[in-house]
């Protein structure tokens, strides 16, 4: 593929990730300005609520007592992803989407860790009497990205084509 086309696709990834990052930070700003810390507001009774908390751990609060570790892991992921995208010569549409989703999401949470020493979470769901751990928009972005990545790699394996 032509050099200029590849660089245009890379710019696209950068643009989408940045949009996700901005949207994530806007949502966090709204939550922190409308709610008090630890305030809970039910949107759908018995099912969905907003709850402004700061999570020092990773997903499901793992490594809760090692905020620095999580910060470093986040940074390494970004560097790795950046390097991967930079070296890559060709992009499918689905790759552009999942790479952007993952990048944008990681950046969104990484900024929180740098600024507030923890991630701002606010989306809460209850299923019966099970409380799903509170998460945020950046988490949704990362998880959807990873799911797409899996789907894509399974599809490629079936077609006998290896990625990259």
């Amino acid at each position: 593929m032509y050099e200029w086309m590849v660089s245009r696709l890379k710019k696209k990834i950068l643009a989408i990730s940045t949009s996700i990052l901005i949207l994530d930070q806007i949502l966090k700003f709204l939550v922190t300005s409308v709610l008090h810390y630890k305030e809970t507001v039910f949107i759908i009774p018995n099912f969905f609520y907003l709850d402004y908390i700061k999570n020092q751990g990773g997903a499901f609060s793992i490594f809760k007592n090692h905020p620095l570790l999580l910060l470093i892991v986040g940074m390494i992921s970004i560097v790795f992803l950046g390097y991967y995208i930079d070296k890559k010569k060709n992009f499918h549409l689905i790759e552009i989407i999942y790479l952007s989703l993952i990048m944008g999401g990681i950046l969104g949470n990484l900024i929180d860790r740098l600024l507030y020493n923890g991630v701002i979470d606010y989306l809460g769901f209850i299923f019966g009497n099970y409380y799903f751990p509170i998460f945020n928009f950046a988490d949704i972005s990362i998880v959807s990205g990873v799911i797409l990545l899996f789907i894509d790699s399974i599809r490629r394996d079936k077609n006998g084509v290896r990625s990259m």
Partner: protein
Amino acid sequence: MELEACEDNIRIDQYLASNLKISRSKIQKLIKQNKILVNGKNINSSYLVKEKDSILIDDDLDFEVSVDKENIPIDVVYEDDYLLIINKKSGMVVHPAPGNYHGTLVNALLYRFSLSNLDTVRPGIVHRIDKDTSGLLVVAKDDKTHELLSDMIKEKKIERIYYALVDGIIPHETGTIDAPIGRDPNNREKMKVTDINSKNAITHFKVLKRFPNVNQTLIECKLETGRTHQIRVHMAYIGYPIYNDPVYGKRKETTEFGQFLHSKKITFIHPITLERIEKEVGLPKEFQDYLEKINIQE
């Protein structure tokens, strides 16, 4: 272990020593080692505990209090996934405390339900009623509900109506008692209206029926604050103590039933389902029987 303070203005070493049945010197040692945190901060032994302080004890203490599950009958008025409303009998202590680790409402609840666990010794308990007070009490089944209910209590969003029989004939139809309550410096077990180390307390009452033959009045009380022994202290303060109250009453002799005070009605918006919950229970048998007796005499 973690616990939530439910008293005010007591030195932390004293408070923990009496609540956990361990020596004060051991507590002071733990405080020096920074193993006791209040609201996440280091404190010293002279720190005065405030209600709702969260106390964290970071030590594999040999005194870890385990609360036994006991099959004691209780009257469950309402239950869903998140909370319970119990109609407590007079005479039953709400939660375990020094010298009383068995037969409490918490022991009975643990036998049947899983409860919130923000506090190891008082699982599920978001507010209390006295041992000899009967009636409605809300209990949290999980930590989230516990937090939400505690906030609602602080913000006065849970309305409770009590019935009380007091000694003396109250001439007014309604009244409001606005007098701060604190610990009685002469008797640690007692509360009193005082300006020293006290917190504001407001009680509204309405006369339901007067019984001139026995010189008693049946009233309905609504609390704006929830201090320890509030209704009992306030009614005694204005000269109409609750009938048969062993601590604040007029008479020297009281029966085992204790004060004629009953938490009759509770109304609130469910913090999770957002439904309006309104529950009302009848008076306990002893209370009802006594009222009928003085009614007939009239």
